[in-house]
């Protein structure tokens, strides 16, 4: 017995020596892996910082030459070297606003349909179909918009709008102008179709977090579907829905391809949303290749920087709201 005990002891000892040696050998790859992951995480940080810094440095000449006037002037003259970003900035905001006004109610409506009204066997196929819409590359929306939507806008929708709403005082000023099909409204419409799947997807996920007991309780006392959605689901998920909407807004603000084909690329804005306009991304996409280094390139960089800041603020707000919802759930 003593022999086996001694054997076991020495066996255990040699095993622990092997183990120590093995662990020592593995220490380097182990810390290497850890440092690699840490490094990758830092690269993500650096990327965003890099984008912000590179854009800012590139745009400094424009900001220092034009100052705050850059934001309110809509002159854009390469030969005279006078640049003002107002047309692009306002165009970006207006097209995104139109996209929101049309896309958000539709997206929410679809989400409500999918969670409350849809018969269960249809739920998955329709949900998948809507998500497929989200996956379509934006350039497809662009060429579809210019070849299919624009002629329809020119021939039917815009004349209709001009003749009906165009005569209404006040709002009518928004719907003036020759119907050409190209314009801020058409671009906003294409953007709306682009972002509605995002709104639907996030809203649906958010609606699903509502505890069924709450809904069942409401149904149980005789509430209609509309009342359940309006009084239970939406108030419960309000913050999450807004977060999803702002995420979609962030997407709409930065879109290039869907917009540049149909917006008309005019360097001035008019009051009418049926008129041509431009957005920051469309302007950069069209003119960056020709911009001579100097004020022209710097002004485009400045526009890019402004776009970056706007989307950063919107996305940060969206994330904060969605995080609040995560905490709740």
């Amino acid at each position, binding site marked *: 017995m003593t022999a086996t005990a001694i054997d076991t002891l020495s066996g255990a000892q040699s095993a622990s020596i092997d183990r120590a040696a093995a662990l020592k050998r593995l220490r380097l790859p182990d810390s290497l892996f850890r440092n690699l992951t840490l490094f990758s995480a830092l690269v993500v940080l650096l990327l965003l910082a890099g984008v912000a810094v590179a854009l800012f440095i590139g745009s400094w000449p424009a900001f220092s030459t034009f100052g705050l006037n850059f934001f309110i002037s809509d*002159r*854009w*003259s*390469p*030969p*005279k070297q006078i640049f003002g970003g107002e047309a692009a900035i306002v165009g970006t905001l207006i097209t995104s606003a139109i996209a929101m006004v049309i896309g958000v109610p539709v997206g929410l409506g679809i989400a409500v349909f999918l969670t409350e009204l849809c018969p269960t066997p249809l739920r998955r196929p329709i949900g998948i179909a809507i998500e497929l819409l989200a996956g379509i590359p934006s350039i497809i929306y662009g060429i579809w918009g210019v*070849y299919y939507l*624009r*002629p329809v806008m*020119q*021939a039917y929708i815009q004349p209709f709008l001009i003749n009906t709403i165009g005569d209404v005082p006040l709002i009518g000023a928004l719907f003036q102008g*020759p*119907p*050409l*099909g*190209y314009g801020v409204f058409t671009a906003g419409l294409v953007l709306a179709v682009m972002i509605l799947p995002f709104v639907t997807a996030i809203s649906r996920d958010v609606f699903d977090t509502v505890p069924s007991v709450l809904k069942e309780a409401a149904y149980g006392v005789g509430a209609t579907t509309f009342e359940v959605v309006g009084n239970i689901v939406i108030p419960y998920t309000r913050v999450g829905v807004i977060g999803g909407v702002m995420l979609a807004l962030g997407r709409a603000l930065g879109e290039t391809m869907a917009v540049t084909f149909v917006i*008309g*690329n*005019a*360097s001035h804005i008019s009051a009418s949303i049926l008129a*041509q306009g*431009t957005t920051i991304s469309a302007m950069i996409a*069209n*003119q960056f*290749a*020709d*911009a*001579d*280094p100097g004020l022209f390139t710097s002004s485009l960089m400045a526009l890019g920087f402004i776009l970056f800041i706007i989307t950063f603020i919107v996305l940060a707000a969206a994330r904060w709201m969605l995080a609040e919802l995560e905490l709740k759930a």
Partner: protein
Amino acid sequence: MFLRSLISAAIGATLVASTVTIASAGDISGAGATFPFPIYAKWADAYKNATGNGLNYQSIGSGAGIKQIEAKTVTFGATDAPLTPEQLDKAGLAQWPMVMGGIVPVLNLEGVKAGDVVIDGPTLAKIYLGTITKWNDPALKALNSKVNLPDLAIAVIHRADGSGTTFNFTNYLDKVSPDWKAKVGEATSVEWPTGIGAKGNDGVANNVATTKGAIGYVEYAYAKQNKLTYADMINQAGKTVAPTIEAFQAAAANADWSKAPGFYLILSDQPGENSWPMTAATFILMYKKPVDITQSNEALQFFAYCYDKGADQATALDYIPMPANVVDMVKKMWASDIIQK
């Protein structure tokens, strides 16, 4: 797993494609004007068949072409807006005209065929200034008594990118309309008072073809190849001319290249009974001290081929090849100014 299949798909595709001609070191890279792109493409094809060397020409507009050659990202830049001798010296670039062509107004009106409508310079300027907004405007009606111009809004199409075609177009408008000169001026990229911006000669042609009531300006080959409805114009001599190769040649005959340092010459609004008012030459820019001498020589060989053997293809597309004396001047300039060894 998926990565592996992606990589093997890529390798497979590359193997398949190796049976296709692969871009070789002899390939030339150029970028710039959309104005001459149809003829450059034809020439490149012929050159490739003859020598096996290909040309990667990115038709991104004169403004971008100038920018790319200045950034040294391509072997040659192509532009219809020539650089002035001062600009050439500053950048160390050599410039020469490759071919000439005409810019024509194109329009989209139902029932109107090519050559039916007549426009003159001042009216064209007013349309682009936005003071004439409908097709049945009295000014247009006065020029076109035989055509039934409809009560339709004019969709003005212009360039959204930096364009040598725009430069020549606005240069012409400057000459015929003091109003235009005061308000807008001439450049590759101007502050357009009105209208829709399209990218490239091709983009303008596309927009005009698909938009009712549109008017635009394109290089003639684009109008011809796409059967667009062009308009006749009234030239400096007061005569109505159609955009034909004879009209372009009549305008080009006035050009005296020997008196133009750096070959800087604008052919708009030329005198002569048969001259087309918006004729233009298109230029090539290359470095006198090239970054890559082999590439540079390759490009020069290509251009020599185009001069020597490309005349027929040019005239088939209604471009005008450079006259022989100009070709001699250019070749002499290559030998003296561009380092080839």
